[in-house]
C-alpha cells in the first residue's frame, strides 16, 4: 500500500493540472498558425470560405485560450506552492526563461485582444492579418521558453553545486541545455500537428454526417495537408529525441524500451507484457530498430537499464506510454498521407464515409498522443525532479493540505472542461456555417 503523503499528492495534483492544461496549451500554440494560414489563403484567393474559416476558428480559439490562461496561471503558481524546495534551488538558475515566457504570453494576449476586435476595422484585410503574427509568435515563444525549463529539469547545466550552494551560474547555458533543441522542436511540431488534426476532425465530422458543403472540403484539405507536414516533422524530431536520450538520459530510453541488458543489434520492443522474472512476452520486436533509433546504426551498442543504480530507474510502465505515443503518431501520419495521395490520384476510398470516420478520430487521438508523450517525458525522469541533483521527494511541499486542494482542483477542472465543451458546441450549433455564408454572400463577399 502506498502512503498518501504530501509528495505523492503533490505529484498527483501537478499531473492533474498539466494533463488538463496541456490540452488547451497545445491548441493555443497550434491554432493561431492555422488561422493565419486560412486567412492568408482567403485574402490571396479572394475566397470568403477561408476567411470565414479563420473567423470561426478564432471564435472557438478564444474560448480555449481563456481556459489555457487560467490553467496556465494555476500551474505557474503550483510550481512554487507544491514544489517550494525545487523552485528555491532551480529558481536561481532557470528563472530567466520562466520570466521571458511571461513576456511572450503578455505580447500574445495584447495582440489577441486587438485581433479579435478589429475584424472590420481595416480597409485592407492584410493589416488585420498582420496583427495575428505577434499572436502566433507569442504563443510559440511561450511554448519554447517553458519547454526550456522542462528541458533543464532533464539535463540541468549552467551551474556548479558546492557544499549545497550553487556557484558559477550561467543562465544562458541553463536555457540552452542539451535537451532543449529536440524537446522544443518536438513540442512545437506536435502542437501544430495536433491542432491541425483537431480542426480536421471538425471538418471531417460534417462530411461524415453527409454535409458535403465545399466549405468543409476546403477546411479538411487545408488542415490535413498541414497535419501531414507536421506529422512528418514530429516523427523526424522524435527520431532525434531518441538519439538525444541515448547520449544524455539513457535510463529513460532503456526504461521506455524495456531494454535491460546492454547489447548491440538491439531490437525495438513494441507492446507486450512484462513478466515477474523480467521476461517480455507477446511483444512485437523490430530487429535492430532500437540501435538505429539510438545511434543510426543497426549494430550499435545500446545501454541497458541494469547499468543504472536501482533507485535511479524510472518506472517501467512508461513503455506503454511510449507505445501509445508512437503508434498514434505513425497511424496519423499514414492516414494523413493516404488522404493527401487520395486527393491527388482521386482515390475513391479516401472519400468514403468510413475514412471520414477515421479522420474524426484523428483529433482526439492526436491529443491522446500528446498526453502520453508528456507522461512519458515526466514519469521517465523519475525519481528525479532535477536530474542528478534533486529527487522529486526532496522538492515537494510539507503542507498537510494538498489532499483538500487536490479535490478542489479536480472539481474546478471538471467544471471547466464540461463548460468549455458545452459553450463551444452551442456556439457553433447556434450559428451554422451555411447561415453565416448566406449572410456574408448578401454583404457582397465572394467565394469562387
Amino acid at each position: 500500500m502506498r502512503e498518501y503523503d504530501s509528495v505523492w499528492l503533490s505529484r498527483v495534483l501537478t499531473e492533474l493540472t498539466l494533463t488538463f492544461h496541456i490540452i488547451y496549451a497545445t491548441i493555443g500554440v497550434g491554432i493561431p498558425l492555422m488561422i493565419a494560414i486560412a486567412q492568408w489563403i482567403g485574402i490571396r484567393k479572394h475566397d470568403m470560405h477561408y476567411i470565414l474559416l479563420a473567423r470561426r476558428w478564432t471564435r472557438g480559439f478564444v474560448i480555449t485560450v481563456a481556459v489555457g490562461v487560467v490553467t496556465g496561471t494555476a500551474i505557474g503558481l503550483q510550481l512554487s506552492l507544491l514544489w517550494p524546495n525545487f523552485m528555491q534551488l532551480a529558481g536561481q538558475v532557470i528563472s530567466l526563461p520562466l520570466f521571458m515566457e511571461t513576456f511572450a504570453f503578455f505580447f500574445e494576449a495584447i495582440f489577441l485582444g486587438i485581433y479579435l476586435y478589429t475584424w472590420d476595422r481595416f480597409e485592407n484585410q492584410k493589416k488585420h492579418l498582420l496583427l495575428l503574427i505577434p499572436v502566433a509568435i507569442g504563443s510559440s515563444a511561450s511554448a519554447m521558453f517553458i519547454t526550456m525549463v522542462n528541458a533543464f529539469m532533464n539535463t540541468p547545466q549552467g551551474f556548479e553545486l558546492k557544499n549545497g550552494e550553487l556557484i558559477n551560474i550561467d543562465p544562458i547555458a541553463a536555457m540552452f541545455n542539451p535537451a532543449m533543441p529536440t524537446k522544443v522542436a518536438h513540442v512545437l511540431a506536435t502542437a501544430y500537428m495536433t491542432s491541425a488534426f483537431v480542426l480536421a476532425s471538425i471538418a471531417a465530422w460534417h462530411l461524415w454526417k453527409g454535409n458535403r458543403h465545399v466549405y468543409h472540403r476546403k477546411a479538411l484539405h487545408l488542415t490535413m495537408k498541414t497535419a501531414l507536414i507536421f506529422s512528418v516533422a514530429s516523427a523526424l524530431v522524435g527520431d532525434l529525441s531518441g538519439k538525444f536520450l541515448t547520449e544524455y538520459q539513457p535510463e529513460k530510453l532503456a526504461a521506455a524500451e524495456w531494454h535491460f541488458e546492454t547489447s548491440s543489434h538491439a531490437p525495438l520492443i513494441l507492446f507486450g507484457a512484462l513478466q515477474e522474472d523480467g521476461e517480455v512476452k507477446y511483444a512485437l520486436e523490430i530487429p535492430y530498430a532500437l540501435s538505429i533509433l539510438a545511434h543510426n546504426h543497426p549494430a550499435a551498442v545500446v545501454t541497458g537499464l541494469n547499468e543504472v543504480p536501482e533507485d535511479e530507474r524510472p518506472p517501467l510502465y512508461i513503455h506503454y506510454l511510449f507505445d501509445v505515443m508512437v503508434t498514434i503518431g505513425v497511424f496519423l501520419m499514414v492516414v494523413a498521407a493516404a488522404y493527401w495521395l487520395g486527393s491527388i490520384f482521386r482515390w475513391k476510398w479516401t472519400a468514403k464515409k468510413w475514412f471520414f470516420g477515421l479522420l474524426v478520430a484523428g483529433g482526439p487521438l492526436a491529443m491522446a498522443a500528446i498526453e502520453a508523450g508528456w507522461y512519458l517525458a515526466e514519469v521517465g525522469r523519475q525519481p528525479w525532479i532535477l536530474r542528478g541533483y534533486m529527487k522529486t521527494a526532496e522538492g515537494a511541499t510539507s503542507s498537510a493540505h494538498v489532499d483538500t486542494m487536490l479535490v478542489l482542483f479536480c472539481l474546478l477542472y471538471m467544471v471547466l472542461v464540461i463548460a468549455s465543451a458545452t459553450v463551444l458546441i452551442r456556439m457553433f450549433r447556434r450559428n451554422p456555417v451555411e447561415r453565416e455564408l448566406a449572410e456574408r454572400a448578401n454583404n457582397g463577399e465572394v467565394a469562387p
Partner: protein
Amino acid sequence: MTLEVIGISVLWLFLFGYIIVASIDFGAGFFSAYSHWANKQHILHRIIQRYLSPVWEVTNVFLVFFFVGIVGFFPKTAYYYGSILLVPASISIILLAIRGSYYAFHTYGGTERNWYLIAYGLTGLFIPASLSIVLTISEGGFVEAGASGVALDYGKLFASPLSWSIVLLSVTSVLYISAVFLTYYADEAKDERARALLRRYALLWSGPTMLSALLIIYQLRYHNPEHYANLWNVAWMLVISFLFFVITVWLLWRQRQFGWAFIALLFQYAFAFYAYGISHYPYLLYPYLTIYDGFTNETMAMALIVAFIAGLLLLIPSLYLLMRLFLFNKAYVKGKWEGGKG
C-alpha cells in the same frame, strides 16, 4: 542602488500595476452584477462591457508577472511563501479561474445566466480579499518556521483584526478605483446617465477606503511596531497621497476633469503603496526573510533585468497600440464597431 533594491522596485511596480488594472476589472464586475440586481443594468452594462472586452487577458498577466518575477529575483520566497500559501493561493487561483473563463464563455460564447453574473460580481470582491491575505502574512506573526518547514497559523490569521482591516481596504479600494475610472470612461463615452451613477459610487466609496487605511496604520502599531516606526519615516509620502485623494474627491464633487481625477487617484495609490513598500524594507517576510538573504545570484539578477528592459521595449508600444485602438479611441469608446468581434 543595489540589485536587490532594483529588483524589488520593479516587482513592486508590477504589483501596483496589477492592483490598479485588476481593481478596475473586479469592481466593474461587481457594479455590473449589482446594477443587474438593482435593475439598473441598462445604464451600466454597455459601458462596462466595452471597456472590459479587449483587456481582460492583459489584467491576469500582471499578476503572473509579479509572482514569476519574485521567484526569479528572490528564489527563497518560493520556499517561504510557496509553503505557506498553498491554501490561500489555491483558493485565489480557483476564483480567478472561474471568473476568467466564465467571462470568456459569457462574452464570446453567449452564455446568459443570472447565477453566472452573480458569481462574476462576487468573485470580484473575494479575489482581492483572498489575495490581500498575502500582505497580512508578510507582516509576520502568523508563520512558524522550524526544521520541518514553515507553517501558517490559520486561527491566528483569522482572529487578527489586522487581516480583516486589510481585507476591508482591498475591497473598498477595488470599488473606489473602479468607480473613479469608469466615471472617467463614461464621461469619454458621453454617456451621462452612466457617468452620474458611477460618480455617486465613487464618492460613496471614497470615505471607506480612507477609513480602512487609517485602521490598518493604527493596528500596525500593535502588530508590527518596527514596521509602524518605519512608516513614520515616510509619513511625507502618506501626506502627499492624502492630498491627491482630496484632489480626486474634489474634482468628482465639482463634476469636472474626470481624467485628472483618475490620474490623481493613481498618484494617491502609488504614494501610499510605495510608502508601505519602503517602510516594509528590507523584509519580504517578517522576521524570516529579507530581500538580501533571499536574493538570487548577481548573474541571474542582471540577466533578469536585461530581459525585463528588452521585454518592456516590446510591450510598451504594444500596450500603447491597444490603448489607442480601444481605451482611448473616441470612436470605440462611444460604441462604434460594436459588432467588431469576429
